[in-house]
């Protein structure tokens, strides 16, 4: 009989959580898909010549991705202090590293596209609604509210980014596709952490749902339109918006927040 020493499905729940929240798990995971990819791109990938209109749209999209990643970087850093246990603090520290890398690769891609001063360009092209969302997210974290911060960042923002990046990657030029692939792999962890952390705490204390529904009502409008606009800018198929809404609403439904 074949005996498998490493069957993840045989782990006890706490052993599973200890494993997936660890820095070692993070390190051994990102090693698998980020090695040999300076700034997120394979050295063998050849850049495609973009026409002016497509390049302009991509720059606007990447500028807004940079706003989202800056929000997530600052948010994750703030959440380290609020995390209720050490495993969550360690996981959130890995997310800080991920978000910093995402911001860096998007800034690098902007420079490759000829943007000499990404800071200025981001300021010029940032969607006001996304800037407002960033402010609201950091306010929640500044108030010391772990559950609300995780909901705003790891559920609302990360779930939308995860879906938009995947849809964008399907139509992106080869280098941007490479860059997005690494980011998508990271976002899978972030969105999953958020849903599962909230799911566990709401199972213990369902009363938190009332407040999270209120937060959702305040924040949804700030980000849904922005990401729908981003999908249109990158030439995603017409039915992409419904996929974006569908995946987000599936998460909300699993958490009992409809």
């Amino acid at each position, binding site marked *: 009989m074949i005996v*498998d020493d490493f*069957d993840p*499905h045989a782990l006890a729940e706490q052993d599973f959580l200890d494993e997936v929240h660890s820095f070692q798990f993070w390190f051994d995971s990102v090693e698998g898909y980020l090695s040999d990819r300076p700034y997120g791109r394979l050295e063998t990938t050849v850049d495609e010549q973009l026409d002016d209109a497509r390049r302009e749209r991509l720059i606007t999209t990447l500028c807004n991705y940079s706003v989202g990643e800056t929000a997530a970087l600052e948010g994750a850093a703030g959440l380290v202090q609020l995390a209720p246990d050490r495993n969550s603090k360690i996981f959130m520290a890995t997310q800080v590293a991920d978000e910093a890398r995402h911001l860096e690769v998007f800034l690098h891609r902007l420079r490759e596209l000829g943007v000499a001063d990404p800071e200025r360009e981001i300021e010029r092209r940032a969607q006001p609604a996304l800037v407002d969302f960033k402010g609201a997210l950091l306010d929640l974290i500044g108030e010391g509210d772990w559950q609300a911060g995780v909901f705003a960042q790891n559920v609302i923002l990360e779930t939308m980014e*995860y879906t938009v990046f995947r849809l964008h990657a399907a139509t992106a030029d080869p280098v941007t596709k490479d860059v997005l692939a690494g980011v998508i792999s990271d976002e899978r*962890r972030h969105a999953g952490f958020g849903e*599962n952390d909230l799911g566990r705490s709401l199972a213990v204390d369902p009363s938190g749902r009332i407040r999270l529904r209120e937060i959702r009502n305040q924040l949804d409008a700030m980000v849904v339109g922005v990401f729908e606009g981003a999908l249109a800018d990158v030439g995603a198929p017409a039915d992409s918006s419904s996929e974006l809404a569908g995946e987000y609403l599936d998460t909300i439904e699993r958490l009992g927040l409809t």
Partner: protein
Amino acid sequence: MTDTDVSAPEVGADPSRQRYELEETGFKEVPKKWRKFYRHWGGPLDTLAPNEVICPVCKVVIRATRELRPGDKVYCMPCMSRMVVVVGENGRLEAEVIF
């Protein structure tokens, strides 16, 4: 769904179940020792084997060394979710997240 709703065992060593020898398929988002237990989903035309279910959270295919049955608990390491196997509306096996 919460853990108290689920009393079924983990995927056990039931000898009546078909065994599967897993090999890596190119999924690299978890540490090497766990990689063969997951694969990328190929979309709606991707046919799942009896030892596979799709993670509803992150859409990765979760694989087991034995044929899966309703009530089995499985983990999606890429998105850190714990789930139970259920029979979906279409009669196929699906995974439902347990909090």
